[in-house]
């Protein structure tokens, strides 16, 4: 039964999703086509389950990351400091992010500690610091004052609003520069690889090299100007005819392969996902 039930579930879900793609439209003339409600409902429900599973996988990933890294820190791994930084940073950002998203539900001490207050500049020149917990078309409900009691402020009394966010501060000041730095290193490694690895060792490698150089020249103003536009025309020819023909062949081949694999899974023939 441990084998049969997963296979049965896979077959049922696979068939239902497939049928929903090919189910006849209840209104054939409609653009975009209107799907029959029953298939739409089944398809939406299954996709919703998949989305929930995806979110649960995030939690499992975090738990697993903690388990593995804590074990290695405890064992005195040579990178234990970096592993500790990873766990502390991840936990910190998780707490800040959750607090930011659920600010209106947080108890008072946590709210004051984790979420920077918004500042409402009033039309009479005064300011009011607090946390917005509701908005309507006529007013804003703000938790303000020492007791963070809810106060309703009519919209016409508000001139402007500033909303500092610890989450966005971490994002802007740490996350963006770190990710941009990592990505920009690519330019240096590509330059080094160009000198060391791109060798015209065979006819195929020579063609690849020549095509690469033409594409690089054709992409930039200097390359175009230096060749009187020839590099740009050569680039267009290579990309439109040569490269596209190859890519279309690969896409069609890979799609047919995917279709065959999908069919094998749906029919219960392919069972590698069960570790068989």
């Amino acid at each position: 039964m441990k084998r049969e039930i997963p296979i049965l579930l896979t077959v049922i879900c696979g068939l239902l999703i497939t049928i929903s793609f090919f189910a006849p439209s209840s209104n054939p003339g409609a653009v975009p086509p209107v799907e029959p409600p029953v298939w739409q409902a089944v398809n939406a429900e299954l996709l919703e389950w998949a989305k929930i599973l995806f979110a649960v996988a995030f939690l499992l990933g975090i738990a697993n990351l903690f388990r593995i890294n804590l074990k290695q820190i405890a064992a005195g791994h040579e990178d234990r400091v970096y592993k500790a930084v990873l766990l502390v940073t991840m936990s910190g950002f998780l707490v800040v992010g959750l607090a930011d998203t659920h600010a209106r539900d947080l108890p008072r001490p946590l709210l004051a500690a984790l979420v920077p207050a918004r500042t409402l500049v009033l039309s009479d020149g005064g300011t009011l610091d607090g946390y917005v917990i509701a908005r309507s078309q006529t007013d804003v409900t703000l938790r303000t004052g020492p007791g963070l009691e809810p106060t309703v402020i009519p919209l016409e009394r508000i001139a402007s609003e500033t909303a500092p966010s610890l989450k966005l501060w971490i994002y802007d000041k740490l996350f963006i520069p770190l990710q941009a730095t990592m990505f920009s290193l690519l330019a240096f490694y590509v330059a080094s690889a160009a000198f060391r690895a791109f060798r015209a060792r065979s006819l195929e490698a020579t063609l690849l090299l020549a095509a690469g150089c033409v594409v690089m020249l054709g992409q930039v103003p200097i390359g175009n100007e230096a060749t009187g536009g020839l590099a740009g025309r050569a680039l267009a020819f290579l990309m439109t005819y040569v490269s596209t023909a190859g890519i279309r062949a690969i896409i069609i081949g890979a799609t047919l392969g995917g279709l065959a694999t999908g069919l094998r899974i749906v029919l219960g023939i392919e069972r590698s996902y069960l570790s068989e």
Partner: protein
Amino acid sequence: MKNLAAIDRRWIFLAMGTLVVVLYALKIPGTLPVNEYVQSYYDTIEALPEGSIVMLAADFDPASAAEIEPMYVATIHHLLRRNLRVINVSTWPAAPPYTQKYFDEIAPQYGKVYGVDWVELGYTPGDDVAMGLIGQSLKSTFSTDDRNHAPLAQLPLLAEVSDSFRGIALLVSSSAGYPGILEWIAQVGGRYQVPILTGTTAVQTTALYAYYPNQLKGFLGAITGATQYLQLVGRDTPALHALLAENQARMLVQSWSHLLIIGLIVLGNVVYFLGKRGARA
């Protein structure tokens, strides 16, 4: 020649670094002829009737912002200047802060009101499954918006959108990889017959030619595509002149970086063949 073959790679790093820093500081603009893919991207947006609803998918993160950000900003300007209404979604968790930041900056310039002219629905997990779900039913995919965490029923713009992508005239994906434009084409484009545009990183661009002009109505390939698009949008959008000049200056940096890489390839091969000949002799 032996010394050259064994050159410390840090000299190459230094050459590339110096080139980039010096040329970037010079800020000399370089213009490009606009290719048909970029022109078609621009024309597709221009052809939409005023008030049409466009879904703008931010499928990128800070690592690829250098390539994607200029085209993303220019697209927001273009959409709002044309009085098109925008629904923002993202399948990348790190993208929504960009959306919020740029709409905060750009929307007031065109007098746009949140909830009426644009909404931010934020990130949804599930990659291509989430895209399928968005296509099937936007309102069951997101329960609240991302900006105010308000129920979707409070956002007037969404009253005009219903299941199966009805009410949405165009999908634009700023895509840096998986999940991105190829998944939108598979999950939404063909199924709901919605026209799609995209701006992507350079490594993704090659794959896009195969989808033009049927599944994709137009695309912007990396900084080159973004610069060409900015040349078109920037003509009627004074707010983009600074970004256009910045991007045109980047083209000079990119030009010489490409030339340096080509030079290194040639030099590397010369060293390789001379070394081979020497060994034979």
